[in-house]
């Protein structure tokens, strides 16, 4: 036995967690859980392939690389870089337990459900459909300004040293309570000016109640607007109907065009809910951008139990991924040409991949965001408002229930989601939407396993697109660095 062997036990190299992908002939690795993306050169690839094939010791690996013609110096550097970046390691890989975030995570946003009433009766709506979980009996139909103001005070108090906070107005149909929205927006601005914080606003609307006065107010106060619309008349009116079954398309389109014409001070996006009859991604996208003039369009499947008629189902979700892929490649072409493309699903994912996000939680619910119901009850997010699940206090009766919030955060951390521990997509997914999990499995802490393949497919696609843009037009990615 040589001296070297005596001093260094023959520990085999192992690959650590990463997702390898290729773009334009270049090999990349997406490291898990860090979320770092590296392009590998030839020696890096040789090393990874060799480790995958035979798990060699360092001596065996070095000998193999020397035989391929690499110099000792470059072999040493490559191994050192791969080891320190946690792409490979000597000895068995033992997953590190993710750490819990600090207890004092400051609040950044409240979503105020300022009414639980709606003038539409969309079949799939999670607030009114068969899968409804909110219990609005005995709760006021409209939030009063005193409740809204208490919510804003709570946000300011709980936001700690954050310089900027955000108030989202939500419903029901948000604009049914426009007078109160107006007064609470003014209140938030006044209070934030007093304490030296910046405040931003956004709302979601079905567009039926947009008037010039309303739009001018939104434009004046730079309120970001998300409009729910599902495509052209035929597609939109399948689900988005008035209580008498009449479609909403003809009512909303002229109003949306007026909104896009008059409101230029913040982003206005379309939000499409995909369901069993509405899964024509490109057709919808083209209609909303070209015919109506939206700058950005985002898609999301309806949250529903699988046996609901409007549930999108596995086959249709396959079609949706195809449709997404088709639009995503178009996004890539436009990005390489330096042009804006309005498919926000790609844009949002690329932004997360660019920063290298590694999420402890799937979203900000309960962490930086809380929902408030019309009566002032605080809940996990707007989707759980007024339900029995995720209750976290009352804005006028003691504010945030920190014990409940901590309990929720401890039990929903990625470290507690065992299904996710071997998945390479967990830095961006972290287990999926709590509401989606609750509707499917009756448990907010369950991972949304019915979407796993879909999410991995989507993130792999976006990684390949990201890699290609990084090679062919890297300056395009600078826009994702602005925060």
């Amino acid at each position, binding site marked *: 036995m040589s001296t070297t062997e005596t001093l260094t036990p023959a520990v085999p190299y192992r690959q650590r967690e990463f997702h390898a992908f290729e773009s334009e002939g270049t090999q990349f690795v997406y*490291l898990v859980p*860090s979320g770092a*993306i590296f392009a590998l050169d030839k020696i890096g690839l040789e090393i990874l392939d060799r480790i995958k094939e035979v798990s060699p010791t360092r001596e065996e690996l070095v000998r193999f690389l020397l035989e391929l013609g690499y110099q000792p110096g470059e072999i040493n550097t490559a191994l050192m870089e791969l080891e320190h970046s*946690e792409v490979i390691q000597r000895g068995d890989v033992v997953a590190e337990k993710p750490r819990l975030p600090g207890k004092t995570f400051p609040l950044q946003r409240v979503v105020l459900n300022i009414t639980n009433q709606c003038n539409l009766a969309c079949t799939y709506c999670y607030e009114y459909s068969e899968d409804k979980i909110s219990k609005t009996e005995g709760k006021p139909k409209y939030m009063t300004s005193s409740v809204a103001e208490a919510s804003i005070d709570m946000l300011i108090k709980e936001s700690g040293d954050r310089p900027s906070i955000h108030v989202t107005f939500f419903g029901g149909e948000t604009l049914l309570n426009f007078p109160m929205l107006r007064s609470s927006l003014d209140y938030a601005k006044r209070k934030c000016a007093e304490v030296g914080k910046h405040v931003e606003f956004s709302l979601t609307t079905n567009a039926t109640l947009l008037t010039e006065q309303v739009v001018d107010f939104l434009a004046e106060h730079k309120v970001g607007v998300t409009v729910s619309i599902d495509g052209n008349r035929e597609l939109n009116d399948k689900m988005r109907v008035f209580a008498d079954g009449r479609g909403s398309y003809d009512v909303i389109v002229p109003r949306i065009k007026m909104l896009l014409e008059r409101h230029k001070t913040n982003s206005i996006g379309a939000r499409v809910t995909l369901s069993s009859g509405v899964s024509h991604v490109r057709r919808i996208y083209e209609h909303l951008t070209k015919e109506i003039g939206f700058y950005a369009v985002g898609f999301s499947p309806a949250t529903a139990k699988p046996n609901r008629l409007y549930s999108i189902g596995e086959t249709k979700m396959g079609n949706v991924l195809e449709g997404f892929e088709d639009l995503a490649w178009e996004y890539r072409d436009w990005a390489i040409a330096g042009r804006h493309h309005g498919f926000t699903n790609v844009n949002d994912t690329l932004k997360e991949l660019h920063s*290298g996000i590694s999420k402890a939680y799937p979203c900000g619910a309960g962490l930086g965001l809380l929902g408030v119901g019309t009566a002032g009850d605080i809940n996990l997010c707007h989707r759980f408002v007024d339900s029995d699940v995720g209750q976290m206090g009352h804005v006028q009766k003691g504010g945030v229930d920190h014990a409940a919030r901590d309990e929720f955060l401890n039990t929903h951390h990625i470290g507690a989601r065992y299904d996710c521990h071997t998945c390479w997509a967990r830095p961006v997914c972290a287990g999926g939407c709590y509401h989606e999990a609750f509707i499917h499995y009756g448990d907010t802490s369950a991972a949304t396993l019915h979407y796993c393949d879909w999410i991995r497919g989507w993130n792999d696609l976006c990684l390949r697109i*990201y890699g290609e843009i990084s090679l062919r037009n890297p300056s395009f990615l600078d826009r994702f660095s602005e925060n």
Partner: protein
Amino acid sequence: MHSMKPINRKARSVEAAVIAATGDVQALQQRGGEGKVYYPMGCTLNFTPGWEVDVSGGTAGLCQPVERDLFDCHLGCGWPAQVPDHLNNAPDWTDKCASAANDWRKVDIVFP
């Protein structure tokens, strides 16, 4: 990095950490860039001899004997100063030197 190129922001943070953990020691002059000599602010503004240049960028007033390198250098700045092991073997070596600026001649010479 040579064998892998950082692409996203997180990868650049990883790269910085890797370089910090594995990078070679560099001579002070190598970090100046654009023909400028680099010497750290702070140390040379105080009386801390042993640097390659003094506060004016010159070399005339430098402390010559390696025994006079003070522990500011190797503790505060990571400079490989020639100081005794003052934790274990020579805990009293600066006892007579209350102020380095005035008493540096009183620093003991420690023989191994």
